[in-house]
């Protein structure tokens, strides 16, 4: 069925593109969908290419000549064989994000395999044991930022419980003409380099943002409430399927069709709030696994997460808006019944400010930060943490006291019932608590142990780490016994959202959904908040575990998780 729909969609898009064959690709009124590769032997070639976004050309890395790379379409129950040729002059790799496979096929150089040397081809081969929307990307250096990513769709072996007439893959990403090494260097030299939305004296006089008293209190703690995104629209253009807002990628539909949007956040650093003004979205899948349908008006998608939504558009055009959580910019695309139609593009909304809750003062979080008075803080608890000590190491005994720890959340709270930064005032926004797995969880045992991992960072030095120890200083991996079930709590001691990804596994979020807990491969941990999940360590081998904000990972927010049969673990 899906195949027929594909053809129908291709015909429609192909016809429109034929109207303007003399225009360069980026300028065509209706953008072609990404090329699809499928079958038993898939060939992918990683190579340098130039990329033109909104009329501006810069260096990039493409796969089979496109950015994003081609849609890799697999079928559940088959064996995937992917021959990946590296035509770069440096090592490369492809990691299949969210796929359950043998660890040595996971594609992380130094953990799963040695990497793919220049001029060589590596063949990935693994049984396809799942279905849904996933993606792939480089796990070498900062190549992902240069365009080395693409979507994966796995069709189920049986009928798809999500019925739809048409589908569009929507790959959200961020692109900069600035080389990723330069971006990282700037962040090291000046943590707030890309923040062009700081509080100003002009703003204070105009009555905007925090009051003088609040500014002083935040200043006393050396915390900047405008620090939402490290890399912003000052450096980035936000892309939909490789097209900038002016290029306006357009997906076609017939009015009344059930259109499935497979939305993937393939960004390096950008967390998007996604909405389609005029359309409700029915979320049917999260991170590739089906969930009970839930209707929302907007949702936050962390880097590396995927959401499938169903929309039923009328005979008009719609703008798909992916506004970054700091609201410095947006990815924009159009859904329309005919080529050339556009809908109004809403202006960027005012950027949010971090609150006391984002600093991990959870119990205070319910208070409006604007009316919070200093006295309330002093009454908050016995420990000194409430009196401007944002760094009481006694509160986190497992965290090593290093310069990589700027603060410790004194009262981190479960924020899975909140939609995320920038969506505080949006009533119909998705939260993790809205997600219920469609299928019963495969493992419902009570965890035999629990553990806590702290997400720590220092914006002034641009250091990021788990438990205060950057990966280059790590002595031991995070060990699991094969088959054991462990309750893991991630505590965010920073004022930023971190999308945390564990390779090779799904984990069940503990949000009160019993044996239908939502299963994810990547989870957004909100600022000053915490997330608890249950993990069945059922995939033997070594696996990467990291923040999926690329420069956080590069700065050290990464670890290795080992899964070993008990007798092997020595």
């Amino acid at each position, binding site marked *: 069925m899906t195949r027929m729909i594909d053809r129908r969609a291709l015909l429609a898009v192909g016809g429109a593109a034929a109207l303007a064959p003399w225009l360069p690709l980026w300028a065509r009124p209706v953008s072609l969908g990404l090329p699809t590769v499928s079958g038993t032997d898939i060939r992918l070639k990683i190579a340098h290419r130039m990329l033109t976004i909104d009329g501006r050309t810069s260096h990039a890395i493409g796969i089979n000549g496109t950015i994003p790379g081609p849609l890799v379409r697999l079928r559940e*129950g088959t064996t995937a064989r992917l021959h990946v040729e590296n035509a770069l002059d440096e090592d490369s790799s492809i990691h299949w994000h969210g796929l359950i496979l043998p660890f*040595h096929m996971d594609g992380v150089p130094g953990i799963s395999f040695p*990497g793919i040397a220049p001029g060589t081809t590596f063949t990935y081969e693994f049984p396809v044991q799942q279905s849904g929307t996933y993606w792939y990307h480089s796990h070498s250096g900062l190549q992902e930022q240069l365009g080395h990513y693409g979507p994966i769709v796995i069709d189920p072996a049986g009928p798809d419980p999500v019925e739809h007439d048409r589908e569009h893959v929507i790959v959200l990403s961020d692109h900069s003409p600035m080389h990723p090494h330069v971006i990282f260097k700037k962040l090291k030299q000046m943590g707030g380099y890309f923040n062009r939305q700081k509080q100003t004296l002009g703003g204070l006089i105009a009555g905007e943002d925090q009051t003088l008293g609040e500014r002083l209190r935040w200043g006393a703690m050396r915390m900047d409430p405008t620090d939402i995104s490290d890399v912003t629209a000052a450096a980035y253009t936000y892309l939909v399927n490789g097209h900038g807002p002016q290029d306006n990628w357009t997906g076609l539909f017939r009015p009344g069709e059930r259109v499935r949007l497979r939305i993937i956040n393939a960004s390096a650093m950008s967390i998007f709030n996604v909405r389609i003004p005029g359309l409700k979205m029915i979320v049917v899948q999260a991170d590739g696994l089906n969930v*009970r349908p839930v209707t929302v008006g907007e949702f936050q998608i962390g880097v590396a997460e995927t959401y499938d939504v169903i929309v039923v558009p009328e005979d008009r055009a719609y703008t798909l808006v992916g506004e970054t959580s700091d609201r410095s910019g947006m990815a924009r695309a159009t859904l329309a019944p005919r080529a050339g139609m556009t809908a109004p593009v809403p202006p960027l909304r005012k950027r949010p400010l971090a609150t006391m809750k984002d600093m991990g003062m959870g119990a205070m979080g319910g208070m409006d930060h604007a009316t919070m008075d200093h006295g309330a803080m002093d009454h908050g608890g016995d420990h000194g943490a409430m009196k401007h000590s944002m760094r009481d190491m006694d509160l986190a005994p497992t965290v090593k006291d290093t310069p990589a720890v700027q603060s410790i959340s004194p009262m981190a709270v479960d924020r899975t019932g909140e939609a995320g930064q920038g969506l505080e005032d949006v009533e119909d926004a998705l939260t993790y608590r809205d997600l219920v797995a469609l299928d019963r969880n495969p493992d419902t045992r009570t*965890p035999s*142990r629990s553990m806590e991992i702290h997400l720590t960072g220092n914006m*002034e030095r641009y250091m990021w780490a788990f438990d205060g120890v950057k990966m280059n200083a790590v002595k031991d991996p995070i060990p699991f016994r094969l088959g054991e079930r462990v309750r893991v709590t991630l505590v965010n001691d920073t004022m930023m959202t971190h999308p945390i990804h564990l390779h090779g596994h799904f984990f069940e979020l503990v949000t009160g959904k019993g*044996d239908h807990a939502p299963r994810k491969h990547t989870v957004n941990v909100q600022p000053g908040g915490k997330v608890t999940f249950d993990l069945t360590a*059922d995939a033997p081998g070594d696996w990467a575990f990291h923040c999926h904000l690329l420069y956080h990972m590069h700065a050290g927010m990464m670890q290795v998780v*080992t899964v070993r049969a008990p007798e092997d673990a020595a």
Partner: protein
Amino acid sequence: MSMIALLFAAAQPPHAGHVPPPALACTPDHAAMGHCTMPEPPAASPPPSSGCTAEHAAMGHCKSDTPSAEVADPHGSHDNPPGNEAAPAPPRVDAADTIFGADAMRGPRERLYAEHGGGKFSKLMIDEAEWRAGQGSDGYAWDAEAWIGGDIDRLVLKSEGEGAFGGDFEGGEAQALWSHAIGPYFDVQAGVRQDFGPGASPTHAVLGIEGLAPYWFEVEGALFVSHKGDVTARFEASYDQRITQRLIAQPMAEADFAMQNVTETGVGAGLSSIELGLRLRYEFVREFAPYVGVVWERKIGRTARLARSAGEDASRPSFVAGVRFWF
């Protein structure tokens, strides 16, 4: 490569790369792989309490169970507190060695660890490169700092100095310091300082601290011991007040102290001089910002008396214009 996959499959017979835990029953995943048979039809079955299937809800035919409703299930793992079993001992990270060989994995693994957090960077900041107009002849001044290294340990170079256009070079200094992070905001620095210019040009040992104080004050303090044993100290602080995103007012203050009279340099014991400045810069880009401002240098106490007796002004206000840039 398929050879290697086969080898691995042979090495781990049950299900290469995906061994189910012993307690785990047949999952849909495994059933789909043909590894086992599901006792009941897998997947896609809607919760029995609801007649609303995913596809029907998606079609708008009905409203699915309100997802925020808690799913009652006595067997759900989430209802019971986890046990308190101890974590296993961490093994070596070497699983891939069994597939690709230890030699092939060693280099990539070392690079992986080094690359994620172990980077080396550098920065050269010319904080002040300015023209000073005051009473008498116009002069110039500079103040610069560079660092190179990692997050914790760095080599820091500092230089400052001033002189008069067409007149005397008044003096300058250069420091070479090892800098070590002692917390999230502060570095300790130790090294040498060489003064240059007319008259005495002593060499000093330096022990200092530099970092970001509460309320966003950039502060810097150092103790100097000259090769003759003279002890002096300096404290500086500055603050960036953003007026707009690009227009920034930077007040600064510097105070110099001496433990004893230092006759060669005309410095008296105690607080010897202060400098106050206010510079207004415009950041065309972060790295490049021209500025204008005022600076007031004032010699204090015995140092002021020494200056006056040498025919110099103890108080010297100037108008300044210059550029701040870094890379």
